[in-house]
């Protein structure tokens, strides 16, 4: 049986009909049409599906959509800056060459956002520890760590949201 619910995704309220068993990742991709968020392993191990829920990084592939009513969901599309420019974290990923095939990138960026919102100047160890739930099978981790560090520097200069 479908239930009509409202989901706040990137500040826009989406009215969607969901079954209790519908996963947030599928609703984001198929019903809200936001395909930036990727579905990787489907069992909470790879981090490709990471979105922010009330500012905290969570795994949308093991999250029920119906449980997200009244919460603020942020996906990679929600990071876009005024005038359509890239968010400083995205820009840092581009500048540092931290994107290879790109499949893990949206999850990586959302995890980095969750981390930098909590710790504006993370150490290398903190970056590794807090982003270990995002797997890059191109294995370009060094550049990703550099990108997060570069984003942290911009962050402190601009105080970007």
């Amino acid at each position: 049986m479908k239930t009509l619910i409202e989901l706040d995704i990137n500040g826009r309220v989406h009215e969607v009909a969901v079954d209790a068993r519908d996963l947030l990742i599928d609703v984001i991709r198929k019903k809200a049409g936001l395909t930036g968020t990727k579905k990787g392993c489907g069992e909470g191990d790879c981090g490709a599906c990471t979105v922010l829920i009330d500012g905290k990084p969570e795994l949308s592939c093991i999250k029920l959509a119906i449980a997200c009513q009244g919460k603020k969901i942020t996906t990679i599309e929600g990071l876009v800056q005024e005038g359509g420019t890239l968010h400083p974290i995205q820009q840092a990923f581009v500048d540092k060459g931290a994107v290879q095939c790109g499949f893990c990138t949206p999850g990586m960026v959302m995890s980095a956002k969750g981390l930098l919102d909590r710790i504006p100047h993370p150490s290398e160890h903190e970056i590794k520890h807090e982003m270990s739930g995002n797997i890059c099978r191109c294995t370009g981790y060094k550049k990703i760590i550099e990108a997060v560090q570069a984003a942290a520097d911009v962050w402190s200069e601009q105080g970007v949201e």
Partner: protein
Amino acid sequence: MFLNHFEYFAPKTPAETLELVSHLGSKAKILAGGTDLLIVMKSKAISPEYLIDINGVEEFKGILCEPGKGAVIGTNTKLAEIQYSEELKAKYPALAYAAGEVGSSQVRHMASLGGNSCNASPAAETPTPLAALGAKVTLESLSGTRELALEDFILGVRKLDLAEGEMLTKFTLPEPAAKSACRYAYMGRRDAMEIDSVNMAVNIELEPDGETIKSLKLVMGSVYPRPLVSKEVPALLTGQKLSAELVEKAAEAAQGEAKPIDDIRASAEYRREIVKVLAQRLLNDTYQAAKGV
């Protein structure tokens, strides 16, 4: 991978929750973080008819940690909150550290302390330090409330001392004694997103002389169907001042008590070796910490 159909309930109060738990019984599962539950539902290992989502119940969340009064932690407190809590880091560093080593950042923001115990996996991280710290669980139902030591609550693999209609609502930790310390350590094949091969926590309280062991608790995880509380190590070390020789003996005693199995994560033989290594390391570190060194 999709989930089988189920009916979803989102109670707002403890009373509503207990009503549902009582009414729906074993056909229902409680949804807290879902990081274990949804995985087993996706694999169709279980197909509950009802899910009771307790994330809307404020009373089940939060950490109350006041000086001199121990701590009370709600069942649905997220592991990330425990990892980051300054109060818990100061008073119960073993618990905060263990919570911060579970899964990934995402998992820790979703998963709850109660779930980590109620999942009753022998390899769970937080039950080990909780048992070492003397944590008690509060089990509530419509007909009343009871309290159990955590190590008596977890009976075995996926087995709890939990009657139908009952649910775990909070953990109560006693105030650490003066001249005491508790530490946690683990070993896995790698650091990230790994489930422990062996984990262990040691809690030592010293006599007022600051050297003689007044009481000691050593708890092992992942080497027994439930958190294994050592009987032999306290028998060897209580009333003693720690020496290299005693550490060696105690670590061997712990090794003898552990009953590990071979599985995907490690062999029994390796686990037995690691029990000794972790016991040596933790006994020394915890003793030093209790001495205030």
